[in-house]
C-alpha cells in the first residue's frame, strides 16, 4: 500500500531520519518501535506532510505520493496536542466527522472508547488519558484508509491501555490500516501485527516477531521470541 524509500530528514546538523525505508500493508496494524528521540514523531510528520523531508520518496500504490493523494489517504494523529480547548468533546467529534467527511457512526466510536460521560466536557478540561481517547475517536472518525497514531497509549493506565488496544484492533478489523508509534514495547506486542524497529533515525529491522527472531537465529539459536529482547538485540 505505502512504501517509504530512503527518507531522510535533518534539523540543521542533527539528522533525525537517515535513509528510512519501510512498507505498510493494507489492513495491518504496524507498530513503530523505538526509544524516545528515535525519530518516530518526525517520521510520522513527514509521512503526513506536516513536516517537509529532505530526500527520499513515499510511494502509494506504486505511484509517488502527491499532496492531494496524501490528504485523502493518510491521517495523522499527533501526540501531545490539545486541539479546540474551548469546545466540547461532542462538538469536536461532530467537527472531525463533518470537516474530514468521515462516514463512521459517531455513537459507535463513542461507545467503543467509552466517551459518553465526557461528551459535554471541554477538550481543554480533559485529563491526559481522556484527551488521548478523544483524539483517538477523532482519528477513527476520519475517512482516510491509513491512520497514523503517535503514542496512542501514552497517559493511559493499564486497564485503559488494554481497552484502547482492543478498540484499535476492532477498528483495524473493520478495514483500516493502522501505523502506531509506541515506545512501550509490551503494549506494541499486544496490539500490532508487524513491527518497524527505529533507533537513532535508522530502521534496524522490520517484520513480525517471528521474522525478527529469524534474523537473530543464526547467531543466537536459543534467543527467545520476546519483542523486548529482539528490540535490544537488533538496535
Amino acid at each position, binding site marked *: 500500500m505505502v512504501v517509504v524509500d530512503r527518507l531522510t530528514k535533518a534539523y540543521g546538523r542533527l539528522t533525525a531520519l537517515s535513509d528510512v525505508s519501510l512498507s505498510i500493508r493494507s489492513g495491518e496494524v504496524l507498530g513503530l518501535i523505538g526509544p524516545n528521540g528515535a525519530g518516530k514523531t518526525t517520521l510520522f510528520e513527514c509521512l503526513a506532510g506536516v513536516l517537509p523531508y529532505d530526500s527520499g520518496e513515499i510511494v502509494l500504490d506504486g505511484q509517488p505520493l502527491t499532496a492531494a493523494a496524501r*490528504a485523502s489517504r493518510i491521517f495523522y494523529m499527533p501526540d501531545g496536542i490539545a486541539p479546540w480547548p474551548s469546545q466540547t468533546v461532542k462538538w469536536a467529534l461532530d467537527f472531525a466527522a463533518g470537516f*474530514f467527511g468521515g462516514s463512521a457512526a459517531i455513537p459507535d466510536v463513542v461507545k467503543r472508547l467509552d466517551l459518553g460521560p465526557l461528551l459535554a466536557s471541554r477538550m481543554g478540561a480533559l485529563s491526559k488519558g481522556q484527551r488521548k481517547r478523544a483524539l483517538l475517536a477523532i482519528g477513527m472518525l476520519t475517512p482516510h484508509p491509513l491512520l497514523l497514531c503517535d503514542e496512542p497509549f501514552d497517559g493511559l493506565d493499564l486497564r485503559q491501555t488494554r481497552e484502547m488496544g482492543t478498540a484499535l484492533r476492532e477498528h483495524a478489523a473493520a478495514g483500516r490500516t493502522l501505523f502506531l508509534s509506541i515506545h512501550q514495547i509490551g503494549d506494541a506486542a499486544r496490539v500490532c501485527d508487524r513491527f518497524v524497529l527505529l533507533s537513532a533515525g535508522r530502521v534496524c529491522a522490520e517484520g513480525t516477531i517471528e521474522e525478527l527472531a529469524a534474523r537473530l537465529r543464526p547467531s543466537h539459536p536459543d534467543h527467545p521470541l520476546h519483542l523486548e529482547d529482539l528490540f535490544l538485540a537488533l538496535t
Partner: protein
Amino acid sequence: MRLRKGPFVWLLEKEWRELLASRAWWVLLAMSGPLIGVSFISAVRTYAELSGYGGAAEGVGVGEAFSPLVGVWAPTFSACELAAAFLLPFVAIRVMSGDRQSGALKLELQQPMSVLWRVGAKAIVLGVAWLLASVPAAIAILLWRSYGGAVYPPEIGAVAAGHVLNAGLTIALASAAASLTDHPSTAAIVTLSVTVGTWIVNFIAAVEGGIWERIAGYTPTAIVAEFQHGLIRLDVVLIAIALTALGLALAAVWMHIGTPVRARASESIVLAALTAAIVFGATFLTASWDLSENRMNSFPKADEAVLRQIRQPLRIEAHLAAEDPRRVDLEHKVLSKLRRVMPRVDVRYVAATSTGLFEQAGAHYGEVWYRLGDNGVPMMSRETTVEGVLETIYGLAGVEMPVESGEIFRGHPLAVPPRRAASVFYGFWPALVIAAGVFQWRRQS
C-alpha cells in the same frame, strides 16, 4: 431535511466558535462602547458649544460653517482607529495562532483544502468581529439623529469605508505576523512594531518631506485621515487592498507548515514583489471622489470647470521647508485639490532645512514658482491661499476667473448636548456585552 455542511462551512463555524471563546474579542467588544462613547460625547459637546449652546458662541455663528463630518464623525470614528491599532491585533493573533498553539493546525491541515480558504475563513470571522465591535459607532449615528442632527450618508459611508480598510490592514498584518512567528507574543510585538513604524514614517515625512511624504500618504493613519475628510482616492483604496491581500497571502503561505521553509520564503518574495509592482502602479492613478457634503476636498465647481480645460502640464516649485505652516496650507488646502482636477501637476519643494527657521531671511524663501507647459513663462507668487494660487494659474493660462455661483455651504449647527449618550456607551453597552459573554460562557460549559 437537514443539509450536509461542507468543510468550509465547518471551518467557518469552528472559527466563529473559537472567536466567541476568545477573551481578547470580548474585551475589544466591551471596550469599543466606552472608547467610541467618550469620543462622541466630547465631539457633540464641542459641536454644541460652537453652535451656540450655553451662550458660548452666541451671535458669533461659528457653527454655521460646521460640518458634522469634521465636527462629529471624524473624532467619533477615530476611536475605531485606536481600537484597530491596539486591540484588534490581539484578537486577530488569537484567532490565527490559536490552532498552531493547540496543535489543531496539524489536524486541520490534513483536510485537502487550500490554505487560502483556511485564511479566508479566519479573515471573514475577524471581519464580522470587527463589524460587531463597530456597532457603537452606528449607535452614535442613531443618537445624533435623535438629537436632530444632520446625517449625510455618503460622507459617513466614506468614513466607515476608511475604517474597514484600516481594520483589514490590521487583520492582514496581525495574521501574517501570527503565521510567520512561533509564538503569539512575538506576533504581537511584530504587529505593534510595524504600527509604530508607520507613525515614525509619518513623523519623518513631516520633517523631511520629499519621498517620505509620498510614502506617508499610504500609511494607515493617512488613509483613515483622507476617508475621514470624505475623500476616496482610487490609488489609496487599491494600495490598501493590495497590502491586505499580501498580508493574508503571507499568512496562508506560512501556515502551510508541511512546505519547506526555503519554498515558503521564495513564495513570500514573489508575493511581495508582485504587491510592490501593484502598489507602484497604483500610485500613478489619480481618480478620486469627494463625498463630503461641503466639498471640503474640492475647489468650487466653477473653478474646477475652468481648471479642467487647462491641458498643459503645470510645474510648481515651492521654496518652503517641510515644517513651514505655509507649506502645510499650500499642500493640504490647495495642491491636494489641484491634483484632483489637474492630473498633470508636478510639485517640487526646495528647502535646505526642515524647519526653514534660518532660511526666512533668504531672498527666495517663500517663493512659489509656476510654469505652464514646457516653454511657458514662469510666474512667481508668495500666496498660499486657494484664491491666490488659482489667480496665478488663471493668469498663466490666460483665462478669466470664473464667477462664483454664490452657493456657500451653511453647515448644520446643532446646539444640543449629548443626551443619553453616557448611559448608552458607559452603561448599556458594557452591560450588554458582559451579559452576552456570560450567556456564551454558560452555553459552552
